[in-house]
């Protein structure tokens, strides 16, 4: 397992070194442009600062990195490991476990413990700090069972001298309290628009993609602060549209719902006929749009509509929130969207 993980990174790093003759064309840009150094990390200044301190002293606490997806959590810790141990050694010193590996309590008890028990020497690699500990990265830790997390807490303390843990998760609430208290927490902020655009520009330039600013802005809007998503989308749209992207292409690729469709919905809730609401909803469903996206865009348009009163907007928001909750729980889309639209119509017609 460990080997496999390391092999994986092996490949990644080899691809990252652009000067190598054989560059795999199919490597996703996300991997390709993953920062190699902490300094390259976009936007997260506080994290970068304190981790640079670590690089100087070699003194690393247990880390807990949390924040929305695509903000650079995994990139940070991998970059840190590379800088700490050097390109030759970091693979031996790091064990990465993620949700696609089995991480039940047994794995924690056996694999993690085994790795944690190993003792490593200091400074085998001149030029790098290479302190005498190893790093275990538990990626996507919010999907670990509570049992496994409980088993971890003792291991973390017992092997603190030889091993540092880095727990990465989206939602810190999913990590049990005892684990949280053993770690230094870093919250990764959503990357703001201009930072993302900068980054996207850099990627697009290096891949010689022609673009306009509008397209990149739209890219950021549809990805909702998830840098990985926007880079992914940049890649796929550039593949599809032969290295030149525009706003329309982005919309096409991101599943952004055409404004006309949303306008139709908004106008239909301002009528009095439930039948027409029903028909419109059926149409939306048949079009197979992403309903969550639809609700978001719908609310955007509603908020911008002057004819609807503020109070009504507030009520509609409430129902929209409930609908989204239902959808996340897996409810039937057609029913829920119909309900949302019908209730919105009711609210508008009430006054």
């Amino acid at each position, binding site marked *: 397992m460990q080997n496999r993980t390391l092999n*994986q990174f092996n490949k990644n790093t080899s691809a990252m070194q652009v000067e190598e003759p054989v560059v795999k*064309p*199919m*490597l*996703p840009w*996300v*991997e390709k442009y993953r920062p190699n150094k902490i300094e390259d990390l976009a936007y997260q200044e506080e994290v970068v600062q304190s981790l640079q301190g670590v690089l100087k002293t070699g003194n690393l606490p247990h880390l807990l990195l949390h924040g929305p*997806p*695509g903000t650079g959590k995994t990139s940070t810790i991998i970059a840190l490991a590379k800088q700490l141990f050097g390109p030759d050694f970091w693979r031996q010193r790091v064990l990465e476990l*993620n*949700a*696609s*590996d*089995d991480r*039940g309590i*047994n794995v924690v008890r056996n694999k993690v413990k085994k790795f944690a028990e190993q003792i490593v020497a200091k400074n085998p690699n001149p030029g790098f700090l290479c302190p005498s500990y190893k790093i275990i990265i538990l*990626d*996507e830790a919010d*999907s670990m069972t509570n049992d496994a997390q409980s088993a971890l807490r003792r291991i973390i303390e017992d092997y603190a001298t030889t091993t540092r843990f880095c727990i990465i998760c989206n939602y810190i609430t999913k990590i049990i309290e005892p684990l949280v208290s053993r770690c230094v927490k870093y919250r990764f902020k959503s990357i703001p628009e201009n930072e993302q655009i900068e980054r996207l520009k850099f990627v697009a330039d290096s891949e010689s993609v022609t673009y306009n600013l509008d397209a990149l802005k739209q890219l950021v809007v549809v990805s909702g602060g*998830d840098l*990985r998503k926007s880079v*992914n989308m940049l*890649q*796929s749209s550039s*593949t*599809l549209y*032969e290295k030149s992207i525009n706003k329309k292409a982005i919309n*096409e*690729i*991101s*599943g952004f719902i055409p404004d006309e469709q949303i306008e139709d919905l908004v106008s239909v809730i301002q009528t*009095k006929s*439930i*039948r027409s609401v*029903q028909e419109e909803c059926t149409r939306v*469903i*048949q*079009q*197979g*749009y*992403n*309903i*969550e*996206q639809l609700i978001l865009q719908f609310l955007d348009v509603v908020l911008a509509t002057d004819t609807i009163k503020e109070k009504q907007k507030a009520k509609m928001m409430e129902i929209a929130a409930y609908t989204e909750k*239902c*959808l996340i*729980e*897996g*409810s*039937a*889309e057609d*029913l*829920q969207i*119909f*309900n949302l639209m*019908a*209730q919105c*119509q*009711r609210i508008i*017609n009430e006054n």
Partner: protein
Amino acid sequence: MLQQLWTESTKPKSLDSLDYHSEISEILRKLAKNSDFPHLLFYGPNGAGKKTRVLAFLKEVYGSGVYTVTEEEKEYKINETSNTTTSCTVLSSKFHIDVAPSDADHHDKVIIQKLIKEVASSHQVNSKQTKDFKVVIINEVDNLTKEAQASLRRTMEKYIERCRIILICESLAKIINPIRSRCLLIRVPAPDQTQVAQILDKISAQYNCKISQQLINKIAIASNGNLREAILYLQSTRVNNTCIKDDQNIAAQEWKLHIQHNIVMPIVKNQLVETMKEIREKFYQLLVNCIPVDRIMFEMLQGVLNQYKDHANKIILYELIKSTAKCENRARQGSKGIVHLEALAAEYMTIIKQFA
């Protein structure tokens, strides 16, 4: 002449022969040309032609070999220590494998993890001719448990060099965000009525059945965008009647009628506890036949709305819709469908009593 149902015999086998959504075909063609493509996620309603497009796309990539498949039952141990296994039927060609892990219910995670690792670890035999990656088609991703989806997310990154994953689902909302952000999303909308009618026309010409435009339109409307249903229906009308009448009624599916007659009508007529006893049996008849609870509720809603569509007090309609949405959500969170159906029926009765 009749070895296959028309849904199969008329199924387009290449991107060029696809009848509608030419823009999707165009995208797919570009992807195929590129010799490399990201993970794909096809979403759209039932019978819209997702799978047809996926296979046509694969044919474009690999050649017609993708249609030569073998069937295999794979068994995986749930974990290292126990002897319990979970199994799942896998269709595989030289180039791709096709699997629906949600068949294994809550063990789907195991199948995802093991199967993809297995595929990724096996090399393509002659990598000169073909792409050096395989394609894994995962069906019904929206039915996968959250755990299975979570295990998929990193797998998708890890094994991207060896295999590409094509996910097919009906509703995007049930897919967790990390997966969505790792895929190129391709929406396959249902064909609209004219498109359905065109296809039906084409098929009826192909099989030389004389059918009026009127009837074709009727079928197209009744199919509600589900092309598969439309074609099947066309064929069954053809077999049913030696000469097809123009004014033939398009019968709704039996269970829908059952709901209208045996469940909605009693609720509308008598809002009594007796009615509850009466319709419980009817609910069970539907449930035993594995008709999904949300579909039953949807049909019930259609039925009651129809009954009260001209009612002076519009509130009743809104209330009915609201209660349906609420009960549907509860049914999704719970496990015993009957409980939620009864709750909905009782709620309908109170609403009708109060407002009608």
